[in-house]
């Protein structure tokens, strides 16, 4: 399996020049870049993701002086400021219906009210708990499974057909099944998030183990390393960056798919807030919920990037 998954590795041991520290560039990537959908969309995601990362890093890496960094910073926030301006002006001039798209200032006020009366915190917490549970579960189960599949041929041969089948079954399609089996409560939502998160982690882990530079394995073997030490000292560290690509994708999924689950059947959570606001025609609240989710996704991605960097400072790209 995992043939369709292009390994999202760096340039390997021989690539790259001295570290030009193309840091911080990734934070600007939209949280919702990868759509949780069919298997093939998931499979392709890491490649596109990585390409974008490299592009941004290259751009950032070529600019070193403080002045140009400042220019870049202004440039980036400029787009956001423009977006905010358009959002504010268009409803006010009547170009779009202010009932369906209220001006940004009204949305922010509604957000502030939600924050003050504690409802936002309540929904936020409900969503976060579900996301983290499913995401954490996926990490704990999918990484060891991925390592086993990547390392032991028989395990891969045994599990491949089943995994291939489920990989191409959309998580959304399975939500009714999860609800039937686990009920409308927390369990079905956590399982749903877990299911969606497990795939990118699993597939990237498998590919991380499979695509370890053969020369490194050969070199380690020539120094007399047995299979266990080889796995511990070469395969695992070499696979870390690819595994993290999967973790980062899963982090985005964990929030994206949860919202869907909360719209189908929930009494709390940001997805519920959005859906409920729309049903009861509290349109500014609805937008407040959407903004919160975007911010949450962004923050989560930044956090994971930070962790990733700590674990793979040696990466060339």
């Amino acid at each position, binding site marked *: 399996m995992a043939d369709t998954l292009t390994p999202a590795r760096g340039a390997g*041991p021989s690539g790259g020049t001295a570290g030009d520290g193309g840091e911080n560039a990734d934070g600007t990537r939209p949280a919702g870049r990868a759509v949780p959908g069919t298997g093939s969309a998931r499979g392709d995601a890491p490649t596109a993701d990585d390409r974008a990362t490299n592009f941004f890093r290259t751009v950032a890496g070529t600019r070193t002086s403080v002045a140009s960094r400042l220019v870049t910073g202004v440039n980036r926030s400029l787009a956001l400021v423009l977006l905010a301006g358009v959002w504010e002006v268009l409803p006010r001039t009547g170009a779009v219906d202010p009932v369906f798209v209220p001006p940004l200032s009204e949305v922010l006020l509604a957000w502030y009210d939600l924050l003050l009366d504690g409802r936002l915190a309540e929904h936020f917490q409900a969503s976060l708990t579900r996301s983290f549970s499913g995401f954490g579960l996926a990490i704990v189960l999918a990484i060891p499974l991925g390592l086993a599949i990547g390392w032991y041929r028989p395990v891969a041969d045994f599990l491949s057909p089943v995994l291939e089948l489920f990989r191409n079954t959309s998580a959304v399609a399975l939500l009714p099944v999860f609800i039937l089996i686990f009920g409308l409560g927390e369990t079905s939502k956590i399982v749903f998030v877990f299911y969606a998160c497990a795939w990118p982690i699993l597939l990237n882990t498998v590919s991380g183990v499979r695509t370890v530079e053969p*020369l490194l394995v050969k070199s380690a073997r*020539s*120094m007399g390393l047995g299979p266990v030490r080889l796995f511990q*000292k070469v395969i695992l560290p*070499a696979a870390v960056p690819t595994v993290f690509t999967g973790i980062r994708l899963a982090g985005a999924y964990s929030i994206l798919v949860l919202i869907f689950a909360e719209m189908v059947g929930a009494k709390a959570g940001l997805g519920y807030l959005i859906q409920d606001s729309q049903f009861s025609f509290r349109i500014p609240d609805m937008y407040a919920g959407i903004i919160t989710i975007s911010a949450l996704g962004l923050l989560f991605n930044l956090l994971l990037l930070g962790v990733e960097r700590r674990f793979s400072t*040696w990466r060339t790209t």
Partner: protein
Amino acid sequence: MSAHGRAGRRGTGAGRGAVEQGASAVPGHGAPAARPAKIGIRDVGKTFRVRGSDRPFTAVDGIDLDVREGEFLTLVGPSGCGKSTLLDLVAGLTAPTRGEILIDGRAVDGPGLDRGIVFQQYALFPWRTALANIEFGLEAKAVPRKERRERARHYLDLVGLDGFGQRYPHELSGGMRQRVAIARSLAFDPDVLLMDEPFAALDAQTRESLQEELLRIWEKTGKTVVFITHGIDEAIYLGQRVAVMTSRPGRIKRVIDVAFDSREGDLRADPRFGEYRHHIWTLLRDEVAVAQEQERTIG
């Protein structure tokens, strides 16, 4: 450079006898000395199964070669003649289909820390610093942490990279990476150093300085070195003996003793250097033609 009379270059006495024979070509393996050779390759052949073909692929066949203790032997041959296969066999990474390989008279049955390999593509672990890379083999040897660090520093110093210990491989130039790789192979103190075109990926200047450096290190450490190259000049410059291989299936065509009266100055300008060069070139020319023909027909 000084003190480079080939015979008197090193203190260890083993196997210097045959060196001073000038350009006489010795067919087959060099005459065995009284004590057993450091590396003994006895009628070794290796065939591979090829996917989608019934015919097995014979990489090397009927190889006989002795490498004396402390000797620097270079191995040249046309591309695809099985040089690297032969090195893998000596390293114990693959097993011969027939024949046997002896180290100190004992048959090789797998990789071991008595042999160190240096690859063309460095094969450094990108997640480890230069020092940690050098320590790798010492970890495999279960050397205590403190001693590991000390020895790694010593060898880093030996290859002239003092002060670069905390750099990651991607922060080093190609030449520096290869120095680290050489230090890593020396650090666990193998008797034999197997080098597979280690300088082929480097630019000419870096290559020359590393060649000199390697000779210096070899003199200092007294290792037995088997050095694969496709450069005739490199083979003559480095080797006490040059083994010329045939095209596939690779055999040893001729082993040539290389001896210079003095290595003062520019060795490559020595008229005898040109003689060796021409001799080896003639030996290789026909083999290269055959090898190219093979590549065309097999595709």
